[in-house]
């Protein structure tokens, strides 16, 4: 009996200590700012340039969490983030209208492009519009890799299919369920087509067999917006931090950094600034 009680007591004491330890160890501070963004935004490397500058200037500790667009917006709605940086206007607007997100400002853009094999069996190169390009892809039934993950890119792709009046289905339409880099690699390996943001493509270009076959249609514009999570909807939202980041991102210093980003490495900037409202 003695042994039993001894062990029981020991275990209880240890359990208490073990689970009290992390909270004591964690930094209790409201200098934490949670920025929810998308994987393609993070993969472009832009935030690795912007965030440290902001942190140094203001002393906030930014936790950049890169998830799918769907998850980022859900985090905003649940108050699990303070500020969002996403590129899915159609999904963002309802949340703004319902009051979950404030101060939505579209501040920069780049574009989506259709990439595929050099030989271009679907003859996408000579298409006159994005809708026409997609039609040719559907008709040719050459493999097309979709993100399939409710990301900003995926939503853009879906809206393009919808606009062209087509429903993509069949063995040729493959959903990778993965990030842009992995999806591009699948497309490259299978000599398939895919829709990608220009930035991710440029980063991986050297290791891919795909080339840019279609670009330039205004509907392929990829618009990035920054928005604050409404502090009135949730307690615990870092309202001051959200405002500070929002304001800084739209200010001159950030704009200059964005304007120059990528110019040296790729010979062209990866993002373009929207004119200020």
């Amino acid at each position, binding site marked *: 009996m*003695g*042994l*039993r009680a*001894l*062990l*029981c007591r*020991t*275990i209880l004491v*240890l*359990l208490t*200590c*073990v*689970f009290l*330890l*992390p*909270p004591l*160890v*964690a*930094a*209790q*501070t409201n200098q*934490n700012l*949670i920025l929810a963004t998308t*994987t393609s935004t993070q*993969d472009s490397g832009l935030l*690795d340039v912007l965030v440290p500058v902001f942190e140094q200037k203001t002393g906030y*500790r930014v*936790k*950049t*969490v*890169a998830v799918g667009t769907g998850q980022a917006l859900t985090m905003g709605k*649940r*108050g*699990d983030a303070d500020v969002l940086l996403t590129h899915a206007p159609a999904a963002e607007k309802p949340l703004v209208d319902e009051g979950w997100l404030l101060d939505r400002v579209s501040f920069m853009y780049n574009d989506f492009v259709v990439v595929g094999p050099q030989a271009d069996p679907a003859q996408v190169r000579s298409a006159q519009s994005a809708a026409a390009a997609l039609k040719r892809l559907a008709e040719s039934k050459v493999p097309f890799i979709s993100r399939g993950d409710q990301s900003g890119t995926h939503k853009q792709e879906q809206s393009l299919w919808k606009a062209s009046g087509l429903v993509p289905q069949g063995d040729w339409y493959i959903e990778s369920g*993965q*990030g*842009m*880099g*992995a999806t*591009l*690699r699948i497309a490259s390996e299978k000599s398939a087509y895919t829709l990608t943001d220009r930035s*991710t493509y440029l*980063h*991986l270009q050297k*290791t891919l067999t795909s080339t840019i076959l279609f670009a330039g249609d205004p509907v392929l514009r990829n618009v990035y917006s920054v928005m604050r999570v409404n502090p009135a909807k*949730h307690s*615990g*939202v870092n309202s001051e931090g959200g405002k500070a980041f929002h304001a800084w991102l739209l200010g001159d210093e950030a704009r200059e950094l964005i304007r120059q980003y990528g110019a040296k490495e790729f010979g062209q900037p990866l993002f373009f600034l929207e004119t200020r409202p």
Partner: protein
Amino acid sequence: MELLLDGFLKALRLMLGGDAEVWQITLLSLQVSGTATLLSLVVGIPFGTFLALIQFPGRRLCISLVNTGMGLPPVVVGLLLSILLWRSGPLGFLQLIYTPAAMMMAQVVIAFPIVAGLTMAAFQTLNPQLAMQLLGIGASRWQLLWLLGKEAQLPLLAAVMAGFGGVISEVGSVMMVGGNIKGQTRVLTTATVLETQKGNFAIAIALGLILLTLSFMVNLVLTSLQQRQQIRWPSLS
């Protein structure tokens, strides 16, 4: 093959060249998984000992739960813990989400059943007569536990290595509760996933090799400890 060679060379370059970010990521991996393993030993070994030595109602159920726990999918642990730690969750006020502390908590949950289950099995290999003899010659309760532990040190050290191995290599839970934030919660496994997603396969392989090297070195130390005695088995060849 070229990719593998590329990755191997990159690994050497990163390790020897002192790339600051890679060193920081490696150190954090060691800190998080090392601490989590230690904490899981602190709770798991007593609990496993308890399960092995003490009879109590519901013991079989407890043992089954622990054994099932050894196969807990890390990503599920991460998801459940995230739900608790998110701001929208009941423990959101602790501000633990996206911190190394949260990652440690998740890994303790993963390692605990492994350590407890294997500790229990370790003690169950002992002859109960031994315990009776020790008590008979006047061992106190603490002395009894210590001596039994020494007898079972081979499988106990295996439990430690299994616990560590289980958490140093997992990515599902630390990705969810940590967020893979550069400079704050990025560890070797999550960095490998990131580089793979971005398509930087050589770097991903390099990080994987560094992780294996780290794991190997830790296990080398523990194995040396475990295999101190030369036990002569008859030749089976």
